[in-house]
């Protein structure tokens, strides 16, 4: 079906989230929508799928003006939205999830639903067991199920909002194949993303949003530099890779063992050198999170050693020590869920800096700390004030704040998904700050789902697969293909 969004406006308080946006999507088109965080992509899609109401503007389907005032309206009109987080019921069976979506009649016809489900699966080469429980499925499988559910409900236009976050490479390929097939069937797909490569690979035309406006459209062949310029208004090139690694051992991991009921890990050996960046690659849940948290002193290994190499060539084992001892030794851990484990919602930036600094006396020196906070806010280019509550900051600014909170001196910085959900500008900024720490002799170890990030910023890469841990690979020599195979479980001896 042909869709036209005409002059859509939406404000949130003072922010113009959608500023007179128009967009036309023809049947069979894969329409990409590019833009950094806050560009207005999700808002427009939420208006399109009935979650929000536009302040003004019209929507036409096949040339006819329609009124979408609830998600149920959009489903009836054949619009299906795949949300970033799958909307399903984890403790229920796959087949029941399908039935819930279309409560027609009192008694569901399971047999008929099952047959239709199997047929749709066959079409797209999915293999989800209808009797499996949702909570046992991977994020990728849940996404596949959601696509099938939307098609089964009769969706003619599918909206995919950042669909490649959190799924594996092979599932991504499968998703792309599905999208192409859907477009061949005459269905239109809206692909919302901030990942250039994916948009370029998949889309038949791309609209770029910036600050709530539709900046322009482009058809293949795509000019990457032009797209980036449209997204950011200026060209940002990723800084040239610089290596600050010194051949001096900082931390030595020896025979580390973690007893995890679902994923036992053992025999982990590697050395972290001063100034080096090590990236942990692998599908989510392959053991990298456990090792990272063990290095930070948050989970206790059941065996092995984490040696700190001190200046006097003495080795000190940290295994068995308390988390605070790790912290005092200059090891810092920044979790992926920033507001759950990293920052304290309800406290402002200044209060965070006071908490993170060493306590001086009993009473707080408000004035001194305000100066320190304002200095750090400037140094780290945080968009906010000393009185800003952390939950009011954007993701990128929260991450900057977390980095600004780190104490001196730092020996080892451990990060989970350091740039997840951030736009390219913030990503580059955050990495420049971390590289600065490396120059001062600290080492960085990070887990990322973004393979591109792992390759680009690491000096060495360690791949995880099902609790197995590879030897560190030289990031300059390893190819994406090699890594992809290891991540997918191939090439392990």
């Amino acid at each position, binding site marked *: 079906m042909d869709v036209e969004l005409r002059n859509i406006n939406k404000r*949130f*308080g003072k*922010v113009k*989230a*959608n500023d007179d946006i128009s967009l036309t999507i023809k049947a069979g088109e894969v329409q990409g929508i590019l*833009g950094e*965080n*806050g*560009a*207005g*992509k*999700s*808002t*427009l899609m*939420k208006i399109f799928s009935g979650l*929000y109401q536009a302040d003004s503007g019209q929507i036409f389907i096949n040339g006819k003006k329609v009124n979408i005032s609830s998600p149920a309206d959009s489903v009836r009109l054949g619009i299906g939205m795949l949300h970033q987080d799958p909307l399903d019921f984890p403790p229920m069976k796959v087949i029941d999830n399908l039935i819930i979506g279309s409560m027609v009649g009192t008694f569901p016809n399971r047999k008929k639903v099952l047959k239709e489900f199997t047929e749709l699966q066959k079409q797209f080469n999915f293999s989800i067991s209808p009797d499996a429980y949702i909570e046992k499925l991977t994020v990728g499988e849940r996404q596949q199920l959601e696509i099938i559910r939307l098609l089964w409900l009769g969706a003619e236009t599918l909206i995919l909002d950042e669909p490649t976050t959190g799924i594996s490479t092979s599932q991504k390929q499968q998703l792309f194949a599905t999208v192409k097939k859907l477009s061949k069937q005459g269905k239109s797909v809206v692909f919302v993303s901030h990942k250039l490569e994916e948009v370029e690979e998949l889309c038949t035309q791309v609209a770029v*949003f910036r600050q*709530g406006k539709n900046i322009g459209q482009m058809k293949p062949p795509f000019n990457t530099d032009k797209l980036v310029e449209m997204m950011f208004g200026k060209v940002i090139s990723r800084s040239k890779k610089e290596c600050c690694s010194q051949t001096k051992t900082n931390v030595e991991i020896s025979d580390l063992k973690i007893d995890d009921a679902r994923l036992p890990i053992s025999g982990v050996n590697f050395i972290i050198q001063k100034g080096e960046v090590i990236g942990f690659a692998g599908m989510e849940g392959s053991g990298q999170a456990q090792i990272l948290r063990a290095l930070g002193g*948050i989970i206790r290994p059941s065996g092995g050693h984490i040696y700190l190499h001190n200046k006097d060539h003495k080795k000190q084992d940290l295994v068995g020590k308390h*988390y*605070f001892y790790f*912290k005092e030794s200059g090891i810092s*851990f920044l*979790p992926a869920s920033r*507001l*759950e*484990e*990293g*920052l*304290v*919602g*309800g*406290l402002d930036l200044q*209060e*965070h800096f*006071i*908490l*993170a600094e060493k*306590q001086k*006396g*009993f*009473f*707080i020196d*408000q004035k001194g700390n305000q100066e320190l906070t304002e200095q750090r806010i400037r140094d780290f280019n945080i968009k906010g004030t000393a009185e800003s509550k952390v939950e009011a900051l*954007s993701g990128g600014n929260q991450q900057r704040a977390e980095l600004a*909170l780190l104490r001196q001196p730092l020996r080892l910085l451990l990060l989970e998904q350091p740039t997840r959900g951030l736009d390219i500008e913030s990503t580059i900024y955050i990495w420049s700050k971390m590289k600065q720490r490396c120059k001062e002799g600290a080492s960085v170890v990070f887990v990322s789902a973004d393979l591109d990030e792992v390759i680009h910023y690491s000096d060495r890469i360690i791949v995880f697969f099902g609790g197995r841990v590879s030897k560190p690979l030289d990031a300059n020599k390893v190819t994406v293909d090699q890594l992809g195979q290891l991540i997918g479980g191939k090439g392990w001896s």
Partner: protein
Amino acid sequence: MRKLLTNRYSSIAIALILAIVFTCVVILVMNANPIRVFAVIMRGSVGSWDAFTQVLQAWVPLILATCGLMFTFTAGLWNIGMEGQIEMGAIFAYGVIRYFTGSDTPGAVVIILAILSGIVGGAIWALLVGLLKNFGGVNEIFGGLGFNFIADAIMLSLVYGPWKPEGVANGSTRMLDRIYWLPQLEGSYLSLWALGIAIIGVILVTVILKGTYFGLKLKAVGKNSKSSFLLGVPTNRYMLVSFILCGIFAGLTGALQVTGFNHVLRNNISGGYGYMALMVGMLANIQPLLSVPIALIFIGLSKGASGLGIDLQLDSNLSGVIQGSLVIFVLIMDGVRKVIQRKGKGAANG
């Protein structure tokens, strides 16, 4: 309208109006005249110097209990066990005075010792709840309730058992000798010493919570203990300390009830102040200074309403209706405020 609803203070004012309207409806249903009811309450609370000193006297235990709860509220904990902790403070204080009665020790020394021992009693009782929570995984609400019952049982067994006055068993001990009373203002029950201690308590709590590392860390633990731990705050220790501090204030409250006002140990000496303090602390949004007027209003309502029975043949528990509806309407308005704010913000993350 939106501004009125989203501003914290105007939303409290709206809640106050709603509570008064609601109470008026209740009074009308009871076939009485709301204006006369409020007149009686005003007269009974601030209508005379005598009434006002009674309000101040009762304000002392309420504000002290509220001060204690500021610590546990800040740490994100519900110390329902306040009542029991006050009782234990009273028991410990009375025990010391009883021990010294008839000895040569000067009265002032005994009073100080009694207050200190009351503080210890309250702190121990609170610490037990904290330990159960930290090491036994028992929610502090259930732990607190349990220890309230135990404190009640201990109290009863003492005042009907070994500590009962000779010959009678009326749920109260013998009255303390005069030398063990905190000095009272001429012609009233109000002890300026107790009042002074309460005012110092408020200042102390304000300074600790607003101006010290301890206060900030406690606040961080209350808002998000996981993040606080990763930021380097020993969260379990802070929770325990908040219980101990709360218990100290509870114990102090109990001890002052014995030496400053009741001059006996009796059943129900905590007077429900522990529960009322929970309401005050909640209404004050954990702001110690704000709880000062709120506690005054609460006490004024209770004291003033005690005249309702005589003057208007109404139940004096009507003040409870006003207090309760005030809490409920403030909570409702708080909810309304949050909903409106959330809608205003929306999700501007496109």
